[in-house]
């Protein structure tokens, strides 16, 4: 549904987005990760046709965003970064406006408003003016606007920003449900959201894609992925013996626990087998044992530069 080819956007000499290519199909939820200023919002603004690309192309549902903007925009529901809305309007008025602009008049408009009000839990503030709402409600009002025409493509720029943990949870579930029938792309810097809602994630840094895969694939890039953590009663020589295993790179002592790291990603399964064999051969009393899955935040930190580093 969304196809991005060699997309570049430069502001003066600086490339905010640099030769980015990816695509999102129906049924996919793509998490768009990256530090602040990495080019996430700029990319999304080009997808939605708000900013013209400097080079490269974006097509949505087969329509080029620059050449056939109206056809492409009709397919898209967009939640911009700061979730803007017209503060002097009521929630209902704002959503009715959005519906009318999407060609939903009369009864169809009323039904569309009722549907998104329900979906985004807005019924209690329906008649309130938007400037009197809390940030969470304002955010959901703008999200409701993006869903009003039941779009095939959803572009959500930080959809959970400023929400409380319960609201975050609801919105993530909403995104995951939407993803079954739509193509969804959303940006975030909350890594747990990737696990909660995404089928695939892209990490972007300084305008370039630095990682692209399923959450599990990304986690596997973590240093800790495949490491075996175990807790033993007694066995003072365990650390040395674990370190002597040919498939172990190093062994770490974490309080009462020991953690053995595999030599490389391919050695993970072998390491697990050898550790269990070793435990039974030595007759150690095993109290706990598990395989580490890898941590997204560690991967994220390793492949992106913090924005405190001068570029």
């Amino acid at each position, binding site marked *: 549904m969304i196809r991005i080819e060699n997309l570049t956007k430069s*502001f003066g000499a600086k490339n905010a987005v640099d030769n980015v290519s990816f695509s999102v199909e129906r049924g996919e939820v793509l998490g768009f990760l990256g530090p602040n200023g990495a080019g996430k919002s700029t990319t999304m*603004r080009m997808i*939605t*046709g*708000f*900013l013209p690309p400097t080079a490269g192309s974006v097509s949505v549902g087969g329509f080029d965003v620059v050449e056939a*903007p*109206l*056809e492409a*925009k*009709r397919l*898209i529901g*967009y939640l*911009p*970064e*700061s979730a*803007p*809305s*017209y*503060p*002097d*309007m009521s929630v209902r*008025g704002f959503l009715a*406006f959005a519906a*009318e*602009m*999407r*060609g939903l*008049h009369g009864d169809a408009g009323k039904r569309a408003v009722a549907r998104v009000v329900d979906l985004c839990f807005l019924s209690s503030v329906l008649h309130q*003016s938007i400037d009197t709402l809390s940030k969470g409600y304002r955010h959901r009002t*703008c999200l409701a*606007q993006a869903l009003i025409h039941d779009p095939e493509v959803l572009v959500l720029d930080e959809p959970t920003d400023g929400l409380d943990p319960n609201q975050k949870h609801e919105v993530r579930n909403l995104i995951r449900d939407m993803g079954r029938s739509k193509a969804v792309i959303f940006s975030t810097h909350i890594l747990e959201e990737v696990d909660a809602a995404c089928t695939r994630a892209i990490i972007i840094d300084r305008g370039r894609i630095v990682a692209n895969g399923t959450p599990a694939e990304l986690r596997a890039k973590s240093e800790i992925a495949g490491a075996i953590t175990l807790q033993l009663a007694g066995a003072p020589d365990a650390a040395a013996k674990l370190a002597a295993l040919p498939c172990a790179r190093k062994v770490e002592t974490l309080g009462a626990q020991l953690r053995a790291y595999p030599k490389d990603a391919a050695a993970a399964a072998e390491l697990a087998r050898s550790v269990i064999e070793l435990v039974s051969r030595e007759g150690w009393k095993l109290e706990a044992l598990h395989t580490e899955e890898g941590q997204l935040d560690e991967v994220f930190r390793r492949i992106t530069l913090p924005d405190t580093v001068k570029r």
Partner: protein
Amino acid sequence: MNRAASHVKTIAKRELSSYFASPVAYVFLVIFLLLNGFFTFTAGQFFERGEASLAAFFGWHPWLYLVLVPAVGMRLWSEERRSGTLELLLTLPISPWEAILGKFLASWIFLALALALTFPVVITVNWLGEPDNGQILAGYFGSLMLAGVYLAITCMTSALTRNQVIAFILSVAACLFLILAGFNPVTDLFTRWASPAVVETIAAFSVVTHYDGFQKGVIDSRDLLFFASVIGFALFATAVILRNRRSA
């Protein structure tokens, strides 16, 4: 085409209702009417003139609008840029023209409403004497066109910045130029270094020259064309500015 008209209407309706959702509309209407009364009856010496016409009323409009029209129009695009709603508006499946036209028309309709509320002055002059009501109608029409010119210029400056104050000052300056272009002290300034043809051209840009025709009761197609083309040009410039912006 039908779809475009519906978009323009929806945007205009939203814009117009946002004037009345805040005190802006009411403050504006009251001040507009008060100032009109003051200029017509006190500064314009309506009674002392001893003639049944609204010359004293219309004569002040180029100056009155100079401040009031930019005040009405300055938020049109600046506010959208500042609050980020520009991003919503321009990612809707509409052409930027529909948004530009919808917003312009909303403000113009609002100004037309303000102008219509000056009807007591027409009643007064009709009660006191026998004015030429055709001339008065032409005067109103010219006044509305003049407001449209100022408003279109304000649209343009408003699209330039997210700061309403800057938009206001720029549009006052631009409109002031359009008033002064025909004034002798200004044309004299240009005659020192420009050829008479250039001076003539600059003077032809003065809205006052074109506005005066309407006040004499003459709707000249040249004056009309002048006003329409300034409005068209300013709105076109608005579209260019919006297309070339870098961000919200």
